[in-house]
């Protein structure tokens, strides 16, 4: 292993002290002079026609500065399907539909004003089951939406998710064993500790500044700029400034109605307007994980070699469209490429309903698909009479493989991950007892080297060095708590021969920072890391060149270690970095040391058949769990949890383990306790009392095992690890429950009631 100074070190996150002492400024903390407070009035019905609105009483309330509705604001269409607008006119299609908004001098006044707005509705019948909404003659959510070949009104979106490789039907005929199941996944909320919010303000020239929580500053900037154009402010500029983000997990990968409402209110009032969600709003008016109904069949030969995988899905799109509808593009990844499966077919339909609409959420569909695949693998292995551990090993991906979706598998530590989990669980000893205790495992694949979702997967970095040798890294990356600030600092420090504390990473302002497509697809360490490393190399070249003059040594004979430039030939020839820079700045004809680098990884967009090498490298992992099931109450207790991940290289093992712990904890909640419960479209548990996120006391001891495969394309060998930690959690737990008591739960969350009902069904 190479001898690194900064890479591989357990360095606490740069802003950890600010955060734990309450000094970090979150959007909640931000106050701007003259600021007004915005509040939103939501629909009281899941589907209704707006007949009449009267805002006069609200407008008369002292302290109210503006009342906006869909009738007195310009039409701004947003979301990638452009079917959403900030304030709804004519019709509401879900309980989270925004019908009016108020800006007032005080949040209580704004709230009171909402109560004075009178809206008359004609209640329409509503539809909540996507399979019902697909049927011929079903009532239409958006009457103007046309789809299919005939361009007829329909609730089915024009998103033809379809991946075919090989001949599934033929392979099925030739399979010795075929398992067929239906799995159902429901909504879960990101549960960011910091609720959503923003502050929007205009300057006198009508340029917009928005303080935001976004994890996609450059793309959000584009969205806001489009909104400005729709408001008649064409050519005006939008500047996005990020405050400290109180958790994102994909929730801030799109722009939301509340942000446009803040912009509209700020424009109307000529004052800065702040909107902050209550926890209740955070639960019902933000977009949860995409639910799915999954019909899956997998087959194998007599000796347990995969023959085919055939998956059909119906996705409840809700009333509007955000990135949830594109999760099939990622679900394809495990469906086509988790284990070696020669014949693959995947078809998914997204269907409008009067429910809430979904968004990106850590794993982006992968946890849903992996739950179905990995749960069923245990069933298929049982049919074939093969230990599921052996079944997985037999079919595991290996380096050099090209998958049916045309992914080039380069480094791949899947077998190592499976192996270490089996060892830690004492697999052969503990499995198959059915005595109330059981063990299970599940694996995952995810993009680990960026993901070319857009035409570019790039990220820019600017580095400059000041008089004292302080390195300013201005990155396109977004730190949303995951540790981008720290990992980038380590990479730069390693490359430049300085200490991590010498590096200041700026990542908060679109007026300053270079372009980046956003913090998604576990791409930041890989893409922003490679970008930062590239910029560092250029800066280093400049430094050595500048130093060569003052030290009288050829640049190629110079290097930097611990803030000092020295000659590799004559160690006496050396100078502190700051001194070299000062000399450069204070000399006639001097220069500043600064470089930029744009890194766009050599990965491919998926083609029309949804094939292509989406990522430069892929991340693998296996989770293993031991559970105890109380046969009387149905309660599941996790006794042991092992999470092994092929991470390429751990740039910062402390932060990396944090990602794994956080992912697994989130995954355990997804598996056992968490559910956003919608009753006829209405979220009935919009609080932490009844939305059962795990508490600190509930999180079991999670053992994170780091498998390093030193990926040649990664910065110092690293792959992405942001999402993987929760991808295989739920199926590993479901498999362990099966091993413990012999029941297979195919719907999340696996509540005690479901376990008990299945146990009863089994003994019938």
């Amino acid at each position, binding site marked *: 292993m190479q001898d690194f100074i900064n890479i591989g070190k357990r360095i606490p996150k740069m802003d950890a002290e600010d955060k734990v002492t309450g000094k970090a400024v979150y959007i909640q903390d931000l106050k701007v002079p003259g600021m007004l407070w915005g509040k939103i009035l939501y629909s009281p019905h899941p589907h209704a026609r707006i007949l009449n609105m009267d805002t006069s009483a609200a407008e008369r309330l002292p302290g109210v500065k503006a009342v906006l509705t869909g009738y007195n604001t310009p039409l701004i269409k947003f979301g990638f399907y452009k079917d959403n607008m900030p304030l709804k006119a004519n019709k509401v299609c879900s309980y989270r539909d925004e019908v009016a908004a108020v800006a007032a001098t005080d949040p209580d006044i704004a709230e009171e004003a909402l109560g004075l707005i009178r809206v008359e509705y004609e209640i329409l019948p509503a539809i909540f089951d996507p399979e019902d909404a697909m049927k011929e003659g079903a009532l239409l959510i958006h009457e103007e939406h046309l789809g299919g070949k005939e361009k007829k009104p329909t609730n089915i979106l024009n998103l033809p998710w379809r991946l075919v490789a090989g001949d599934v039907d033929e392979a099925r005929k030739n399979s010795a064993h075929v398992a067929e199941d239906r799995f159902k996944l429901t909504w879960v909320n990101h549960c960011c500790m910091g609720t959503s919010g923003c502050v929007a303000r205009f300057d006198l020239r009508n340029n917009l500044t928005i303080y935001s929580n976004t994890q996609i500053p450059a793309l959000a900037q584009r969205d806001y700029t489009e909104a400005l154009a729709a408001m008649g402010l064409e050519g005006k500029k939008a500047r996005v400034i990020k405050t400290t983000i109180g958790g994102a997990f994909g929730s801030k990968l799109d722009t939301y109605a509340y942000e446009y409402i803040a912009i509209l209110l700020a424009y109307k009032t000529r004052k800065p307007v702040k909107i902050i969600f209550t926890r209740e709003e955070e639960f019902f008016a933000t977009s949860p994980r995409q639910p799915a109904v999954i019909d899956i069949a997998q087959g194998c030969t007599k000796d347990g070699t995969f023959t085919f995988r055939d998956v059909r899905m119906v996705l409840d799109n809700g009333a509007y469209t955000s990135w949830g509808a594109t999760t099939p593009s990622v679900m394809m990844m495990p469906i086509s490429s988790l284990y070696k499966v020669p014949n693959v077919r995947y078809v998914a339909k997204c269907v409008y309903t009067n429910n809430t609409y979904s968004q990106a959420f850590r794993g982006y569909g992968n946890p849903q698909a992996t739950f179905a695949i990995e749960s069923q693998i245990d069933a298929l292995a049982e049919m074939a009479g093969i230990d599921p551990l052996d079944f997985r090993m037999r079919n595991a991906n290996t380096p050099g493989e090209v998958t049916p979706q045309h992914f080039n598998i380069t480094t791949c530590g899947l077998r190592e991950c499976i192996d270490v989990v089996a060892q830690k669980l004492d697999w052969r000893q503990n499995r198959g007892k059915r005595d109330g205790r059981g063990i299970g495992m599940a694996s995952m694949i995810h993009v680990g080297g960026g993901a070319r979702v857009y035409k570019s997967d790039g990220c820019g970095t600017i580095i400059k060095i000041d008089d004292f040798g302080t390195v300013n890294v201005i990155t396109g990356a977004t730190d949303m708590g995951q540790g981008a600030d720290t990992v980038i600092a380590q990479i730069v420090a390693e490359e430049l021969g300085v200490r991590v504390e010498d590096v200041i990473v700026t990542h908060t302002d679109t007026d300053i920072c270079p372009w980046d497509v956003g913090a998604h697809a576990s791409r930041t360490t890989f893409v922003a890391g490679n970008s930062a490393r590239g910029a560092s190399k250029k800066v280093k070249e400049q430094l050595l060149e500048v130093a060569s003059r003052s030290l009288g040594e050829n640049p190629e004979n110079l290097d930097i270690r611990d803030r000092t430039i020295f000659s590799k030939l004559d160690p006496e020839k050396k100078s502190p970095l700051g001194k070299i820079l000062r000399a450069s700045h204070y000399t006639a004809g001097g220069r500043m040391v600064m470089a930029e680098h744009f890194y766009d990884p050599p990965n491919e967009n998926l083609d029309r058949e949804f094939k292509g090498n989406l990522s430069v490298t892929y991340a693998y992992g296996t989770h293993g769990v031991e559970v105890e099931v109380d046969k009387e109450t149905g309660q599941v207790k996790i006794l042991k949890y092992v999470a092994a991940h092929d991470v390429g290289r751990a740039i910062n093992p402390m932060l990396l383990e944090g990602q794994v712990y956080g992912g697994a904890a989130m995954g355990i909640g997804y598996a056992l306790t968490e559910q956003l*419960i919608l009753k006829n479209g209405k979220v009935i548990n919009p609080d932490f009392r009844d939305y059962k996120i*795990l508490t600190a006391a*509930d999180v079991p001891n999670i053992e994170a095992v780091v498998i390093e495969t030193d990926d040649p394309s990664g910065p110092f060998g690293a792959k992405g690890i942001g999402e993987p930690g929760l991808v295989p959690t739920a199926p590993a737990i479901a498999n362990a429950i099966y091993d413990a008591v012999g029941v297979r739960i195919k719907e999340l969350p696996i509540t005690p009631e479901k376990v008990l009902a299945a146990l009863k069904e089994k003994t019938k």
Partner: protein
Amino acid sequence: MKKFDYLKPHTLEEALSLLSQYGDKARLIAGGTDAIVMNKQKKISPDVLISLQGIQGLDQIESNGTFKIGALVTHRTIEQSERIKKRFPLLAEASSVLGSVQIRNVATLGGNLCTASPSAETAPSLLVYEAEVLLVSRMEERRLSLPSFFLGPGETALDKKEILKEIILPSPPPNSLGAYLKLGRRKSVDLSVVNVAVLLTLDPKTGICERARIALGAVAPTPLRAKETEKILEGNLLDERLIIRAGDWAKQECSPITDIRGSAEYRREMVAVLVAKAIKQSVKLPRK
């Protein structure tokens, strides 16, 4: 949240006088872990909140003679009180699993009873100890047994002009053993799907159950005693068959509803499981 005035009287008399002055517009507040939440959720909208925090003596535990716990004693105090742990361990156990440490630091025993949630954490334990509540008004004091105090979900016998002053706990007979069990979805910050308290007095020589007290929570409009089940146990030797029968019987004595936390069927089933488990646990384990 609707704005309100916050009044903090220093004596019980002052508090009672404010209460009659403001009538329906006022609401008492102790720890505030329920009152403030209900206010935010617009389930209550008082003009005046009268805090009991400033009143001397309401946060005291008195153990000389009759055992009394002031209404303002917090759950944190209860779970850590050596006196309570020794004499009323089921109450200490119940308080120790209520909410989280942060909540227990402010939430009070009186508040838990006055909120009158069917799943009130401390209610089953207090029911098996046959606790009484002392209600005071400007005119009089009255003592009520808990079953007559609880009237329905969120409803108590507390008159608008009354304040719950203290909880009175008679000493259980010697040789009493018990258990409090809570079934929830998480280890903290959770409401019970079902909770059960069992207190048994066994003849030390014969092992026969002389006296049984069983209480159930979250399975009826109010926490309740399972009196028929108690009768089954009393006068009998507690063997496996009888314990299972007791569980089955308790199932019949409750009337759970289906809600977001559990279905009626599951709750009923869990009453049987928890009652049987609690009996077994009581018999096996000596008092903490």
